[in-house]
C-alpha cells in the first residue's frame, strides 16, 4: 500500500512537471508559429533563376537563336521545360530544353526564326540537386520596345515554387524521427546500455521502422505529385533515382530493424517486471517461510553486436542517401565537404536525440541504480555529440543562411532562427542534466524524477526541432533568396533629366520611360531646391518643344499626383527622335515656376534581319524608323581587304535616292573611324576597308532633303 502510495505520489509529481514542461514547450511552439505566420512564408524556390539570355524585359535588335537560363542549382533535364511563346500563345521553341554542355547550371532551348514582336519565356525546372520544383515567366522583345516591366513584376522573385505541403512535411518528419530513433538505438545500445536495450524496445523499434518506411514512401509520393511527371520519366531522372535509392535504404533499414527486434527474443535487463520477479520484495520482506524462493535465472539479455551495428549502419547510410537529395548536394566547389558535414550533422542528431528517447525509455519504471549508470554514460556521450551537432549545424547554417539579411528576410532564415532558438533551449536542458542532475545522481541521490522530467522536455523540444527541420529542408536557402533579390531584373529603359527654376526654389527630376520616341510614361519628382524635401505643388505640367524642329508644334501634358512627391503622366509628346526642350511648370503656393530641361530620346532599337547564304556575304536588312530599309554587307567578310556596302531602299523596294551620307566603322575596343564613301548608285554607297579578326560595327547616317536616315550593323570577322 505504502509502495502504491509512493508510486502514485511520484507519478502525480512527474505528471505535473511534464504538464508544466509541455505547456511551456507548446507556448514556445505556438509563439514561433505565430511569428512565422505573421511574417509570412512566401513560396520560394531552390533552382532559382539567376539570369537569362535574353534578359527579362530586353529589347533586341536581332532575334536570338536560343534562350539560355542560368540557375542556382542544376536543372533536371527530363523533368524541366522551357517554353517560348509568341503573342498568340504559340510555342516558337525548337526541340527540348537541355543543359548547356560544360555549364550544368545553364539550361537552354533553341528557337526558330523569330519575327519582330514580344515573346514570353515560361520555364518550369526541377532541381537535379534537391529535387525541388520552380517555375517562372518573363518576356523580351525583338525589334520592338522592351515589354514594360511593372514595379511589382520587378520585385517578384525570378521563380516561384509552392509552399511546403503537409504530406511532404509529414513525410520528412517521419523519416527524420524514424532514422533518428534507429541511430539512437544503435548508439545507446552499444555505448550506454551495454549491448542491451530498455524494455519496450520492440515497440519502439517497430514505431521507428514504421516511421522510416512511411516517411520514405510518403516522401516519394509527395515528390512525384509535386513534380507532376509520369512515373517512368521520374524514375529515369537523377531526382527519381535519388528517391529510389532513398527508398531502398529505407527498406534495408527496416529489414535491419526487424533483425534487431528478433534478436531481442529475451527480455532486456532493464525490464522492471523481470527485475521484480527475480529480486527480493522491495520492502525487504523475506520470502514466505517454507517456500523455496522462485528464482528465475534471467537469460543473457545482451544483443548481438552485429544486429545493433547493422541497424546503425543502415540508418546512417539512409541518412546519407537523404542528404544526397537535399540542399547539401547543391553545386559547390565544396560539395563533398557539404555532404560530409550534413551527414555528420544528421548522425550526431540521431545519436543525441534518438539516444535521449532511448534514455527516456530506460528511465521508465521504478528508480534503479542501473538507470543512474545509463544516465551518467549518456551524459558523457552527449557532450561531444552535442558539440558535433552544434559545429556541423553552424557550418551548414553559415553556408546556407545568406548572412544576416538571409536570416531576417528569407523564410528559410526565419525557420532557421526558430530552430536555433529551440536548439538553445535543448542545450540549456542538456546543460542542466550534465552539470546539475547527473552529478547529483552520481553522488548517491537515487531519485530520478527530475531527470525524467528534463529528458522528457528535451525529447519534446527535439521533436519540435525535427518538425521545423522538415519544413526548413523544403525552403530555398537564404543565400539564394538574398542573391536572387540582388539579381532582380533591370529596371525598364528610361531617360532621366533634371533641372531647377531660375529662382532656385524647386528641382525636378524627370524620368521618361522608355525614353524612345512614341508613348512614354513621365514621372517627375519635385523637391525643394535646398532641403530636397517634397515640394507642395498643386499642379505640375510638362511642355515639350523639339529642338531644331520649328515645324513641329509644342505640346503640354498635365501630370497627376502619384504620392511621395512624384507626379506621373502618360503621353506621346516625344513624337520624334532627337533633342527636346522640356519646360516643367510647377504651381503651388506663390508664383508658378518653370524648370527648363533638355531631353535626348533614347535610340529605338532597329530591327535587323540577317540573311546568310553559302558563298555569299552576310546581308543585314535594317528597318528604318523613317521608313524603308537599309541593306548592308561586307564583302568578302574575311580578314584582309574588304568592301562595305550600304544601300537605302524606299518602302516600295526601290533604291532610295540619298543626298549625302557619312559612315563610320568601329573595331572591337576601338574608336569609330570615318569611312571614305564612294557613291555607287542613287542610294548605294561603299567604302574600301581593311579588316582584322574580331567584331566590327558599321554605322551610316544619310539625309534626303529634311529626312534623316541611319542604321548600324555588327559583323564578326573570322
Amino acid at each position, binding site marked *: 500500500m505504502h509502495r502504491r502510495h509512493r508510486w502514485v505520489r511520484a507519478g502525480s509529481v512527474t505528471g505535473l512537471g511534464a504538464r508544466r514542461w509541455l505547456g511551456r514547450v507548446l507556448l514556445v511552439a505556438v509563439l514561433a508559429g505565430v511569428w512565422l505566420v505573421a511574417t509570412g512564408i512566401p513560396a520560394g524556390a531552390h533552382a532559382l533563376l539567376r539570369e537569362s539570355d535574353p534578359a527579362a524585359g530586353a529589347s533586341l535588335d536581332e532575334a536570338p537563336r536560343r534562350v539560355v537560363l542560368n540557375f542556382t542549382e542544376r536543372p533536371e533535364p527530363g523533368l524541366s521545360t522551357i517554353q517560348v511563346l509568341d503573342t498568340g500563345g504559340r510555342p516558337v521553341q525548337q526541340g527540348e530544353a537541355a543543359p548547356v554542355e560544360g555549364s550544368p547550371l545553364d539550361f537552354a532551348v533553341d528557337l526558330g526564326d523569330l519575327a519582330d514582336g514580344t515573346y514570353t519565356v515560361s520555364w518550369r525546372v526541377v532541381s537535379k540537386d534537391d529535387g525541388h520544383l520552380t517555375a517562372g515567366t518573363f518576356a523580351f522583345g525583338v525589334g520592338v520596345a522592351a515589354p514594360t516591366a511593372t514595379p511589382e513584376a520587378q520585385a517578384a522573385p525570378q521563380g516561384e515554387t509552392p509552399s511546403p505541403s503537409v504530406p511532404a512535411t509529414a513525410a520528412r518528419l517521419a523519416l527524420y524521427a524514424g532514422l533518428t530513433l534507429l541511430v539512437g538505438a544503435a548508439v545507446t545500445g552499444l555505448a550506454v546500455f551495454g549491448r542491451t536495450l530498455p524494455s519496450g524496445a520492440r515497440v519502439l523499434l517497430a514505431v521507428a521502422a514504421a516511421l522510416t518506411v512511411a516517411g520514405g514512401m510518403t516522401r516519394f509520393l509527395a515528390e512525384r505529385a509535386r513534380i507532376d511527371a509520369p512515373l517512368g520519366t521520374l524514375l529515369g531522372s537523377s531526382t527519381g533515382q535519388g528517391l529510389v535509392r532513398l527508398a531502398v535504404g529505407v527498406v534495408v533499414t527496416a529489414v535491419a530493424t526487424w533483425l534487431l527486434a528478433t534478436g531481442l527474443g529475451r527480455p532486456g535487463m532493464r525490464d522492471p517486471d523481470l527485475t521484480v520477479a527475480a529480486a527480493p520484495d522491495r520492502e525487504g520482506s523475506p520470502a514466505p517461510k517454507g517456500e523455496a524462493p522462485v528464482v528465475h535465472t534471467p537469460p543473457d539479455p545482451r544483443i548481438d553486436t552485429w544486429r545493433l551495428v547493422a541497424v546503425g549502419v543502415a540508418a546512417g547510410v539512409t541518412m546519407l542517401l537523404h542528404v544526397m537529395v537535399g540542399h547539401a548536394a547543391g553545386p559547390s566547389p565544396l560539395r563533398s565537404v557539404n555532404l560530409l558535414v550534413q551527414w555528420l550533422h544528421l548522425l550526431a542528431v540521431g545519436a543525441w536525440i534518438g539516444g535521449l528517447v532511448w534514455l527516456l525509455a530506460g528511465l521508465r519504471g521504478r528508480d534503479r541504480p542501473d538507470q543512474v549508470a545509463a544516465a551518467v554514460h549518456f551524459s558523457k556521450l552527449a557532450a561531444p555529440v552535442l558539440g558535433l551537432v552544434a559545429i556541423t549545424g553552424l557550418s551548414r547554417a553559415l553556408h546556407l543562411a545568406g548572412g544576416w539579411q538571409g536570416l531576417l528576410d528569407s523564410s528559410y532564415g526565419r525557420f532557421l532562427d526558430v530552430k536555433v532558438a529551440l536548439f538553445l533551449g535543448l542545450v540549456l536542458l542538456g546543460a542542466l542534466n550534465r552539470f546539475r542532475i547527473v552529478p547529483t545522481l552520481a553522488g548517491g541521490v537515487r531519485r530520478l524524477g527530475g531527470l525524467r522530467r528534463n529528458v522528457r522536455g528535451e525529447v519534446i523540444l527535439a521533436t519540435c526541432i525535427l518538425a521545423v527541420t522538415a519544413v526548413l529542408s523544403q525552403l530555398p536557402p537564404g543565400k539564394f533568396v538574398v542573391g536572387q533579390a540582388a539579381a532582380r531584373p533591370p529596371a525598364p529603359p528610361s531617360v532621366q533629366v533634371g533641372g531647377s*527654376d531660375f*529662382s532656385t*526654389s524647386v528641382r525636378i527630376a524627370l524620368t521618361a520611360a522608355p525614353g524612345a520616341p512614341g508613348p512614354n510614361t513621365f514621372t517627375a519628382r519635385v523637391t525643394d531646391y535646398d532641403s530636397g524635401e517634397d515640394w507642395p505643388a498643386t*499642379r505640375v505640367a510638362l511642355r515639350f518643344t523639339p529642338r531644331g524642329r520649328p515645324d513641329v508644334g509644342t505640346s503640354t501634358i498635365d501630370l497627376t499626383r502619384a504620392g511621395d512627391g512624384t507626379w506621373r503622366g502618360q503621353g506621346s509628346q516625344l513624337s520624334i527622335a532627337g533633342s527636346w526642350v522640356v519646360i516643367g511648370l510647377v*504651381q503651388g503656393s*506663390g508664383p*508658378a515656376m*518653370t524648370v527648363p530641361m533638355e531631353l535626348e530620346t533614347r535610340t529605338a532599337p532597329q530591327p535587323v534581319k540577317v540573311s546568310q547564304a553559302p558563298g555569299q556575304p552576310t546581308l543585314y536588312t535594317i528597318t528604318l524608323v523613317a521608313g524603308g530599309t537599309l541593306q548592308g554587307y561586307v564583302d568578302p567578310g574575311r580578314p584582309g581587304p574588304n568592301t562595305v556596302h550600304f544601300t537605302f531602299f524606299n518602302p516600295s523596294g526601290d533604291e532610295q535616292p540619298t543626298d549625302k551620307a557619312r559612315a563610320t566603322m568601329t573595331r572591337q575596343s576601338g574608336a569609330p573611324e570615318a569611312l571614305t564613301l564612294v557613291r555607287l548608285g542613287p542610294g548605294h554607297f561603299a567604302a574600301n576597308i581593311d579588316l582584322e579578326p574580331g567584331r566590327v560595327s558599321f554605322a551610316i547616317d544619310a539625309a534626303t532633303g529634311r529626312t534623316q536616315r541611319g542604321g548600324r550593323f555588327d559583323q564578326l570577322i573570322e
Partner: protein
Amino acid sequence: MTRRTASGAAVLAVLLVLLLALPASAHGEHKVANYTLVVGFGTEPAYAGVTNSVQVKISNNGLPVTDAKGLKVAVTTGDAEPRQMALEPYFGEGFGDLGDYRAFFIPTAPGAYTFKITGTLGGTKISESYTSGKDGFDEVTDPAEVQYPAAEPTGQQVTTRLERETARINAALATQRQAAEDEVASARRMAAIGLAVGALGLLAAIAVGVLALRRRS
C-alpha cells in the same frame, strides 16, 4: 471657264489665303443666355512679364454687343489672391472691333489663369469662370522659351531668386554669427577659468609664503 469666273475664283483664293494667314487666335467660345462670349488673352501666346489683357468678345445672334456696362473680371492663378478688374470697351470710332472688351494687366507668372466674369448683360446676370488650357485659350508661358539670344528672367523670377538668396545668406550669416558667439563665449569661459586658476595660484603662493615666514619666526 469665263474670265469673270476665273477672276472671281482668284479673288476668293487670295481672300482664303489671307484669312488662313491671320495669326492663330486661341480663344474659347461660350454661350451665356442669348450671348456668345469669346474669352482669351488679348495677346497670344501670352508671356509672363509682358503686358496683356483679358479679352472678352461679346455678341448676340452674331451681332457685336456694344452697350455692355459694369462687367468685371477677376483674374487668378495658383493660390494668389484674385485681382478684380473692369472690362472696358476696346473699340471706338475707327478703332478696334465692336464688342471687344478688355481688362489690361501684366501676368507675372507662367501657368494657368482663370478669368471669372461677372456683371449683367441685357438684364441677365452672368457669373462665368474660364480657365486657360481647358477652356480654349493658352496658358501664360515663360518668356525664356522664346527669348533670343539670351534668356532673361522676369522681374518676379529675379525677386524670388533674391528672396531665396537673401534667405540663404541670412542663414549662413546666422550660422557664422552663432559660431563666432560660441567661440567668444568659449574664450570668455577659458579666460575666467584662467583668472580663477591664477587667483588660486596667487592665494596658494601667499599661503606658502605666510607659512614659511611663520616657520622661520
